[in-house]
């Protein structure tokens, strides 16, 4: 029964079938048109502009942005806390109490809580060396400069955080990045000392 058996009668199939042509019915075009229109309406309503940050129940990116915490001061404090915990807390500790052989306390420190942040801005930017009196106690250590590591906004955030950290009992005002910008523009060579800092007004 192999196909090439010469004794098997060849079945005649006639000519190769050919597909005809006919016009698409108008009602089908209309149905597809309506379906397409409905699909577009559904996407406009529910696709969130195809933005990756938009999930239900939010209809658009603006709604998502509005639903997020809006307080710019809280954002600055949150950013400051993140940076503080990542860098400053190594010596000044998360509690802000400092450590005996590394850094003086920030909690309740009259330097931190001064009416303006001009002095601590310079300490943070340029570092500090030599004797300094904090909360009635003398310290003689060296802090490295941070001006190359943080932007003006970041230093302002850190200083805002340590000045407004209520768990430490600190209740001073927030810090404007303009103060940091002005202090950075003075181009101070080497670390600050107490004598230099005392010449800067903090009122």
């Amino acid at each position, binding site marked *: 029964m192999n196909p090439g058996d010469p004794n098997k009668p060849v079945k005649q199939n006639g000519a*190769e079938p*050919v*597909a005809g042509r006919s016009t698409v019915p108008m009602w089908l075009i209309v149905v597809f048109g309506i379906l397409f229109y409905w699909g577009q309406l559904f996407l406009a309503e529910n696709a969130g502009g*195809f933005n*990756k*940050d*938009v*999930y*239900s*129940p939010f209809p658009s990116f603006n709604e*998502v942005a509005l*639903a*997020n*915490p809006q307080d710019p001061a*809280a*954002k600055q*404090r*949150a950013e400051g*806390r*993140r940076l503080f*915990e990542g860098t400053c807390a190594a010596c000044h500790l998360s509690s802000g109490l400092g450590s005996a052989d590394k850094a003086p306390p920030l909690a309740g420190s009259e330097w931190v809580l001064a009416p303006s942040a001009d002095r601590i801005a310079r300490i943070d930017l340029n570092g500090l060396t030599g004797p300094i009196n904090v909360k009635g106690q003398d310290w003689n250590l060296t802090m490295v400069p941070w001006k190359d590591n943080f932007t003006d906004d970041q230093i302002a955030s850190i200083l805002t955080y340590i000045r407004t950290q209520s*768990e430490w009992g600190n209740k001073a005002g927030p810090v404007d990045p303009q103060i940091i910008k002005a202090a950075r523009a003075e181009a101070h060579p080497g670390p600050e000392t107490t004598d230099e800092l005392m010449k800067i007004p903090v009122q």
Partner: protein
Amino acid sequence: MNSGPMLFLGLFATMACSWTGFVLAPQLQLGGLAQTNTVAVGDALTKTYPLPLPGDAHAGAEVYRANGCAACHTQMVRPAKLGPDIPRNLGVRRSLAEDYLFEQPVMLGSQRVGPDLANFGRTADTNAIYLHLYDPRDPRLLKSGSVMPPYRFLFETRKIGFSPSSDALMLSEKDAPPAGYEVVPRPQARALAAYLLSRRQEGYLFEAPPPLPPKPNAVPTNAAPAAATPVKK
């Protein structure tokens, strides 16, 4: 077969549309997804999210996959309008693309024969996981009973040496091994428990922010004209 080119073009266009919609568009939309920071709630620190799985949990993902856990367990908290997952405390927020950034493959599952495990690690306890794997119908675990099959091959019954192992299972009377023997988890069971403990979709993200507290001074916009009406003379 006089319409071959037309047939080819039609099929090609159909496949190209599917590929664009199901492969290209998601890649353009989410292909650049990266670690992000959680939204700070109050004074809490923002955290980097998500973090890669630790090594033992990574090995546990393979055990989870090999034993077909995803056939009966999902790992997705549905959005509020698709089901009451959040009121049932399966998660604090809906699942997002970020939650699966380090999952390879993503074992979402499709049927909830067993409970959703997206946030199982928040409340789980290693010993309870071992017991449940060894005997899901242990009377101390679930009052309503469980339909899960036991996975006893993840455990080893062995003779107690000088002293009982610290991680030997505290089995109920009906499962207790013969005197002088103890049941301890094999490495696969340990890895699986570590994987299950790592199931936490925690922290609010930008896409799913924490619910805002109601504004104390909020006045409905249509209340003002109504209040003004009686004043009219």
